[in-house]
Each structure stands twice: as structure tokens, then as C-alpha cells.
């Protein structure tokens, strides 16, 4: 198979390397090798030699019209953004890197990272529980997802923050006895930060459990059987065989969730927690520059999402090894290849 491919490649190359008008037989041989025709057939047919003809690319006039219309629209939007003084770009620039905004941004990133990681870890455990053979574990996992997916996040936040109202003290001990290892006032334990992390984590876990479960289910049963037949232990089976394949199904949804979480953290403004969104609110309430400051927050969210998208691209690419025959080039590799071939083309043109 591979030897046939090399033969074709070689004959094509030799046909190309014959400079100028090639001998009439050369293209014929190349074609017959590729098409599998017996060579006598190619020789018998007196084929016209097209090698000196110029190739004219097909014209697509409507494509150009469409491009022009869209370009005009994009230009108009950009123009209005740049020239309408009410956007107050000066104010945006002034606040974009201001210390309070940066502090808020760091809080947002902190919340996202902590509740994202904890949420997915808990989600992974919930997914395994849901797939286990124990009916109790299955139903506990199901109920968890059911409750947290059907309660508004806002309500969850306020509930956690006001937990002190429901339970004055929180203690760790042996249930149904008087043994207590420690006891603490709920209000001291549940700070704004703790309530925010708790709410976001539990909510995130409920959603990510379903995403991870879906990924695991998408892996072919035969993979597990083959691994079991080879005597590979259960834990290794999950981490080495199933999860890497499940990741392909998990990642796009997981990044959706993480990106949603970045902006979802803005909901903790109800706890007066000074993350990015709450910070800009505080500022514009004082300065009355509402739109420019919302723009500051938006631009930061755009930056975070863009960075995450780049991560997503490369992580997905990592896990797609073996899933496609040949990995497509990354944008960077494409650019490099474009310049390389472009340079070759110009060189060839010059040499002709």
C-alpha cells in the first residue's frame, strides 16, 4: 500500500521536475499509475499534451459582492464605535487598568478557578457514582443534580449566605449522639467568599457531572472489555483507556461551562462580593459613567474568554491524537506553511 503511494508520488514528482513542455509520455505514465490503467493503454492513446497551457481559476463574482457588503457593514460598526463620543473610550482606557478594577478581575479569576476545579472534581465523583452499580449511589447522585439544576443560582447564593439564619451553629460529630469534635458559629464560617465558592461549586458540579457522564458513556464498551481481557486494573482502565477517549466528548462542553462560569461569577454581586462586575457597579454608581464602565468589565470578560478559547483549542488537539488519521495544522503551523510555500512559489516563478 505504502509502496504504491510512493511510486505515484515519485512519478508525479518526475513529471513535475521535467522543466518546460514535458515529453508527451510523462503525464500519461503518471495518470496511468494513479488510475491503475495498464501503461500500454496510455501509450496507445495519442493524448494531447496540456502541460504548456495556463490554468485559469474559476470566477466567483457573487462571493466578491457578498464580501464587499459584509466588509461595509463591519466598517460601519467599527466607525460608529470609534467616532461616537458617547462610548467615552477615554473613560474606558482610564478605568481599564485601574487598581480597583484589576483587584476585582483577580477576584473573578480566583472564584472561577476555585469553583471550576472543585466543581469538576465533585462532578467527576458524582458521574462515577451515577455510573456505579449501587442503587443508593446512583440515586444520591441523581438527586443532587436534580436539586441543583432546578434551583436558580441566585437563590442558592442567598441561601448559603443566610445559612446562619437556618442553622445558628455548625458542628462536626457523630450523628444521633452528643459527641462533637468542634462547633462553630455559622456566620463566622460562611463568609461572602465561602458562600460564593460553595454556591458556584455545587451548581457547577451538578452540570459537570452530566457532562463527564456523557463523555464516559461515549467510549465504546469494547475498549473496557479489551482492557479487562489484558488484565489492566480498574483504576488504570479509567485513567489510561476510558478518560482520554472520553475527554474528546467532555472538553467542548466543559469549556462552555468554564466560560459560562467566568461570567456567572458576576452573580455574586448579590453578596456584595467585590469581584469584577460588582467593582464596576460600585464605580459607576459613584461616577455615573455607566456604559463606559460596563464596557470595561465586558472587555475583560472578552479577554478571559479569548485566552480560554486558545487553551481549549490546544487541549482538544492534544486529546484528538489517534482520533483522526492526520491532525489538522494549527493556525500557527498553517501560517508558517503558507509563508514557506509562498516563498517556494515566488522562487520557482523567478527561476522560470
Amino acid at each position, binding site marked *: 500500500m505504502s509502496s504504491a503511494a510512493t511510486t505515484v508520488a515519485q512519478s508525479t514528482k518526475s513529471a513535475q521536475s521535467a522543466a518546460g513542455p514535458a515529453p508527451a509520455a510523462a503525464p500519461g505514465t503518471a495518470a496511468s499509475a494513479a488510475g491503475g490503467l495498464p501503461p500500454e493503454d496510455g501509450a496507445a492513446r495519442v493524448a494531447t499534451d496540456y502541460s504548456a497551457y495556463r490554468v485559469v481559476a474559476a470566477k466567483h463574482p457573487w462571493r466578491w459582492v457578498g464580501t464587499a457588503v459584509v466588509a461595509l457593514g463591519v466598517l460601519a460598526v467599527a466607525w460608529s464605535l470609534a467616532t461616537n463620543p458617547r462610548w467615552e473610550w477615554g473613560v474606558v482606557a482610564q478605568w481599564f487598568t485601574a487598581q480597583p478594577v484589576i483587584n476585582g478581575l483577580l477576584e473573578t479569576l480566583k472564584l472561577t478557578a476555585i469553583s471550576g476545579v472543585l466543581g469538576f472534581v465533585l462532578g467527576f465523583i458524582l458521574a462515577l457514582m451515577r455510573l456505579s452499580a449501587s442503587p443508593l449511589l446512583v440515586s444520591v447522585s441523581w438527586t443532587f443534580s436534580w436539586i441543583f439544576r432546578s434551583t436558580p443560582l441566585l437563590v442558592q447564593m442567598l441561601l448559603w449566605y443566610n445559612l446562619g439564619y437556618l442553622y445558628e451553629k455548625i458542628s462536626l460529630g457523630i450523628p444521633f449522639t452528643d459527641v462533637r469534635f468542634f462547633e462553630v458559629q455559622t456566620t463566622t464560617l460562611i463568609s461572602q467568599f465561602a458562600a460564593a465558592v460553595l454556591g458556584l461549586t455545587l451548581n457547577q458540579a451538578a452540570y459537570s457531572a452530566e457532562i463527564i457522564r456523557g463523555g464516559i458513556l461515549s467510549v465504546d464498551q469494547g475498549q473496557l472489555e479489551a482492557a479487562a481481557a489484558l488484565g489492566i486494573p480498574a483504576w488504570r482502565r479509567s485513567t489510561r483507556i476510558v478518560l482520554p477517549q472520553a475527554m474528546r466528548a467532555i472538553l467542548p462542553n466543559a469549556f462552555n461551562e468554564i466560560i459560562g462560569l467566568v461570567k456567572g461569577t458576576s452573580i455574586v454581586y448579590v453578596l456584595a462580593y467585590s469581584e469584577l462586575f460588582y467593582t464596576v457597579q460600585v464605580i459607576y454608581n459613584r461616577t455615573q459613567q455607566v456604559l463606559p464602565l460596563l464596557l470595561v468589565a465586558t472587555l475583560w470578560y472578552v479577554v478571559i474568554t479569548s485566552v480560554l478559547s486558545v487553551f481549549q483549542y490546544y487541549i482538544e488537539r492534544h486529546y484528538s491524537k489517534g482520533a*483522526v488519521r492526520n491532525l489538522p495544522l494549527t493556525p500557527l503551523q498553517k501560517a508558517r506553511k503558507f509563508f514557506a510555500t509562498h516563498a517556494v512559489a515566488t522562487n520557482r516563478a523567478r527561476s522560470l
Partner: protein
Amino acid sequence: MTAAATAANAPATKTAAPKDAATRGLVEITKVRKSFGTTEVLKGVSLTVEPGGVAVIVGPSGSGKSTLLRTINHLEKVDGGFISIDGKLVGYEVRGERLLELREKEILKQRTGIGMVFQNFNLFPHLTALENVAEAPVVALGRSKEDARRRGLELLDRVGLKDRAGAYPRQLSGGQQQRVAIARALALDPKILLFDEPTSALDPELVNEVLDVIRELATSGTTLIIVTHEMGFARDVADTVVFMDEGQIVEQGSPEHIFTNPQEPRTRSFLSKVLEPAFNI
């Protein structure tokens, strides 16, 4: 049971197997039953395969061939009867009068002595050919990565694929994938190899490259149990041909016996349907 009866009819040498320590790869299946829901797919099957023997199981679809094969390495738990390898029960431990179900860890250890090759290859698509072969020796037998790699390359060489060691399964043809799967099964130095229709998912022109590898294995002293629809190959490679139908062994014997002089009408009618005219009786 007819199955048990026919098995008992087998030559006396088969049942009187030597039980010394040198015995490697003796498979004894005794009155095995298995149901899926209300369908009984194995109805008391008994079969003995000698160490180094090559048993080929043939029969119509749904006759329980594959299920029988999968019970041997405990991928399917039997509902009744028992299977032993070199005198040791598969999946259970004898403790006095009781049979204790083995735990996952011990079952996995038993399985390392039994290689299996699947109809759909079941190669791990995200691992290269060499990684597929070298994975199990490291985690299941505790060999060093270097050893596993070296041995993996040897095995890939043996199936004629040393130059494709770095390729992912999807970059290989079906026949090449199945040869990698055979190398993977061999990596644990099994005393028994199970083949579940190893050529059924292959294009006709790729069948022979896989059969040639199995043919080579048949002379290596490993016990082979092969489920296949390739009658010419069965005749060529088998010591014992086993004909199964409706969850029972209908008839078993040497290839000459089964293919040229079958006793049971069901065997005859099956063979007349599947044999090419050249083999017709």
C-alpha cells in the same frame, strides 16, 4: 444433555490429561450454562482442549460460540457449570466445600494467562501500535517500560509490523490492526489464546495476512481456541473442530472427521450451506 454426552464420546486420551506441573494451557469446560434474560445461550457445554491444542469452534450465528469463548476468560460469568485452566477454576476459589467468587484483582491476574483477540480489534485508538502492545505488560505484570517496549517491538516484528510501531490504529488497515491486536494479546505470554471471529470484520483480501499469523501461532505450543467462519482455515489449522448449534456442542472431532464424514444431520446441513463447492461432500 446431548452436549455432555457427545463430549464424553470424545477419545479417551482427551479426558485423561496429565496433571503434572508442566501442564500449560489445558482448558476444561464442564457443563457450562449461561442465559441472557430468558434466552439460554449455553445449555450445558462441555469441552476439553489439550495444552498446545488448536480447537476451532464453528456453527451458525447465535449458536453461543462467542459467549462460550468469553466465559473462558470470565468476561461472561457462567450461571452453571465450571471452567478450569490447568486444573484451576476460572473466577472462583475452592475453599472446602464452597466456591468463593474471586475478586476483581485476582480475576485480572488469571486473565493475564489468557490472551483474547476480538472481532472488532478493540485496539486503543489514542495509543500507538507499540503503546497498545506495551501497556499491559507494564501494569498487569509489572515489567519495566524498557522491557515492554523491546518485547513489543519484537512482537510487532513477528506479525510483520515493526515499521508501523508509531502509527495510531486508525492509520492502519483492518488486517494490520488485527495483527497489532494479536501482538498485544501475545505480550502477556499467555498460555491460551482466544480468537473471537478474528477475520469477520476484514475485507476478503486482508483475511489471509491475519490467518497466516494465527497459523504460525498454532505451531508455537500455545493453546488456541478459535471461533471462525473460515472453514478452509479451520480444516487447515485445527486439531479439533467443534460444531455448535443452539447453545450445545453437536459434534466434535478431527477436521477430516467433521468436514468429510460428519455424523449428525445438523452438522451436515450447516456444512453444506457454508462450504465452498471445492470442499463439498
